[in-house]
């Protein structure tokens, strides 16, 4: 009997509750999309922030204060990456020296040019990049160096350090707008050979994952594990990153909350109107001895049915929407997390029941006799 009533009244009122159903459907879709996006947003924006560069720096424990700076072992790059167990990426060693070209001081920077993907991505290059780590005969030069010495790709230059000399061919000219513009970039092994410091590097830069506290802990752990080095988070970078990420996440939460609130409002008004319209029905039910709870159950069951229907129809496209949005916003795939499906359904149900409950409270305050007499 109860279910027959629910079914009949649901289909009869369907036309009038259409707007509320659309709102519920929208709520299901938006909450599913944003929840699904939420999990990935941090990581995706984080990978975008990575373009700003490294957030960890490794230097020798004793300070490179004077000219006789101590150096690190090149093997440390691999050791650190292993010890960090996946929490560290893009570890790059750098060896700096102030060399001479035609009697003028120029910074010579040695690194693994084949792995310097970050530098390569933002540098404007004319000529070609050095793809082979063992290439010791060629170099990349910064734009300022090229202008100063009138060099272009294919030409040669001679670099002097202490009493050693090395003739290098210019493979490419790069422009980054920062210190690389003033330097000669070579492979690490070439720089080590010229400065006679085999297997040595001046500094390591790396990228760690996680919040500033996590980075602090990782840096502390690695500093303790490897004697003679200091691992330090580049604090400004790490903290700005965390702030940007927190804000973006907060905004996704906020939007979901706003959409749900508005949906509850539209359910509330629709249900109030529906209940008002059917108050004769309600009055009759009450006059015939029907209980308050019976009416409440009828209305709530109706709302739940609508919410489930809207939720099922809305959540699936919501997840599809989040994938599309992920593609648009982050240009990469967003993983589907199935937990968002029941979550979105539950939220939609909750919002519908809440709206209906508030509407019922209002209608139930009416006296049956008054309603019936009204006409």
């Amino acid at each position, binding site marked *: 009997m109860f279910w027959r009533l629910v079914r009949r009244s649901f289909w009869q009122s369907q036309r009038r509750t259409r707007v509320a159903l659309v*709102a519920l459907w929208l709520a299901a879709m938006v909450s599913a999309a944003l929840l699904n996006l939420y999990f990935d947003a941090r990581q995706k924006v984080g990978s975008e922030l990575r*373009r700003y560069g490294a957030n960890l720096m490794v230097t020798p424990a004793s*300070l490179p*204060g004077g000219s006789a700076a101590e150096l690190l072992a090149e093997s440390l790059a691999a050791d650190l990456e292993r010890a960090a167990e996946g929490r560290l990426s893009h570890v790059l060693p750098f060896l700096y020296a102030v060399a001479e070209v035609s009697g003028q001081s*120029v910074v010579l920077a040695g690194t693994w040019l084949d792995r310097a993907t970050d530098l390569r991505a933002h540098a404007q290059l004319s000529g070609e990049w050095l793809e082979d780590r063992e290439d010791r005969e060629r170099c990349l030069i910064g734009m300022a160096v090229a202008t100063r010495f009138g060099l272009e790709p294919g030409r040669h230059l001679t670099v002097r350090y202490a009493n050693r000399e090395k003739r290098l061919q210019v493979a490419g000219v790069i422009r980054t707008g920062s210190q690389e513009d*003033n330097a000669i970039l070579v492979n690490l092994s070439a720089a080590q050979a010229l400065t006679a410091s085999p297997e040595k590097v001046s500094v390591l830069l790396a990228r760690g994952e996680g919040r500033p506290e996590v980075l602090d802990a990782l840096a502390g752990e690695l500093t303790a594990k490897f004697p003679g080095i200091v691992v330090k988070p580049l604090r*400004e970078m790490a903290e700005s990153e965390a702030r*940007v990420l927190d804000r973006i996440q907060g905004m996704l939460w906020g939007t979901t909350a706003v959409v749900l609130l508005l949906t509850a*409002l539209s359910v509330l008004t629709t249900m109030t109107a529906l209940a008002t319209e059917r108050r004769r029905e309600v009055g009759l039910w009450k006059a015939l001895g029907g209980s308050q709870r019976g009416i409440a159950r009828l209305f709530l069951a109706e709302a739940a049915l609508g919410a489930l229907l809207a939720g099922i129809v809305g959540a699936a496209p919501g997840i599809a929407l989040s994938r599309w949005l992920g593609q648009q*916003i982050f240009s990469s795939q967003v993983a589907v997390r199935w937990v968002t499906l029941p979550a979105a359904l539950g939220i939609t149900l909750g919002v519908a029941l809440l709206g209906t409950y508030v509407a019922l409270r209002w209608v139930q305050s009416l006296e049956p006799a008054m309603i019936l007499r009204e006409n």
Partner: protein
Amino acid sequence: MFLRLLRASLARGRRRFLLALLALALGSGVAAAALNVALDVGDKLARELRSFGANILILPKADTVPVEIGGVDLRPLSEGSFLREDDLAKLKKIFWRHHILAMVPYLYQRARLADGSTAQLVGTWFAKAVPRDDGTTFTTGLRTLHPAWQLEGHWPGDAADAEVLLGARLAARLSAHSGSELTLQLPGSHPTRLRVQGVVATGGAEDDQAFVPLAWLQGVTGRSGSVRRAEVSALVSPEDAFAQRAPASMTPAEYDRWYCTPYVSSIAYQIGEALPNTDVRVVRRVAQAESALLTRIRWLMALVSLAALLAAALAMMSTMRAAVLERRREIALMKALGAAGVSLTGLFLTEAALVGAAGGIVGYGVGRVGAELIARTVFGAGVAANLWLGALVLLLAVGVALAGALLPLRQLYGYDPATILKET
């Protein structure tokens, strides 16, 4: 007649009117708050991204190659060319002057410490008041360029006093702290004593440097008015394909559009115009990362605003729909008495527009308060009022109220009034 009907209808249906007004105000209020925050967050995030460092670098033209490691120029002061410190004020005269958030000059000098080691001195502005054309001043320096720097102690002043801000590792090595004194010797001069004002830890190359007032360093090195370089932090729009074209290849109309958009390239170009004989470089790493992020954030904002607007429109529509359907008997009666469809529609739509306008105005007020509350709790800062947002919300409320009323009205006209009247 029309006005009397309208007045009577509004007066008699006061409860209904208030309910619709409440729903519309709440709907447009929440939408206004969400939009206000979303718009402002975009701006806040853009400023947040500026804390990743300067995006424009100014160097003297016709210079020798800077010998630069860890952001510090190691050349002795006898070598290379310099910028004029006074010229930096011209940056606040360019077209996009309001987008210049900070500009910081640098002068570098190595000094010998008491223990025989050396330290890199960086002469710079901390919070210098630069005069502007309109008589006001613009405060800029390391403090505005690096708002996230945490320091123990105080920032040094910008007068030519012997004060210093030490990098954390340098301070640890010298066991110096704020309040202690530091003795150092510059090449070719007597030992000087500096007062340590503060210690800063950034984790980067700054930890090994000593920051001193520019005026002091210029005085002791005899380089008054000269700086090696300047860093500029400018608030920019994300770069697109258009922004990357060479200005020389543009038509006059395109050139105007490019010039009047705050792309990092056009701001750099304008700085070059204001400071001849300089080499203005865009720091590509920062500019590109910033541009990519800003594009993504814009998409996210659009999505958020759209979702909020859609939900608000639906909520308001359901209210209007309910309000009209509630009066179906009334409408049927009027129609049965021979009222023309047009005048009936006019009456109801005027009512809807009135409710919509009132709801929109109240909603905007509610939204402003809401946005302020959200921004204060989430971001710890207020939001700027946005007048065109008010207009948008008002338009939305009226539009949605009209649409919400029109749809069920049309439906009702389709029915025979007799059926509706007989219904009860």
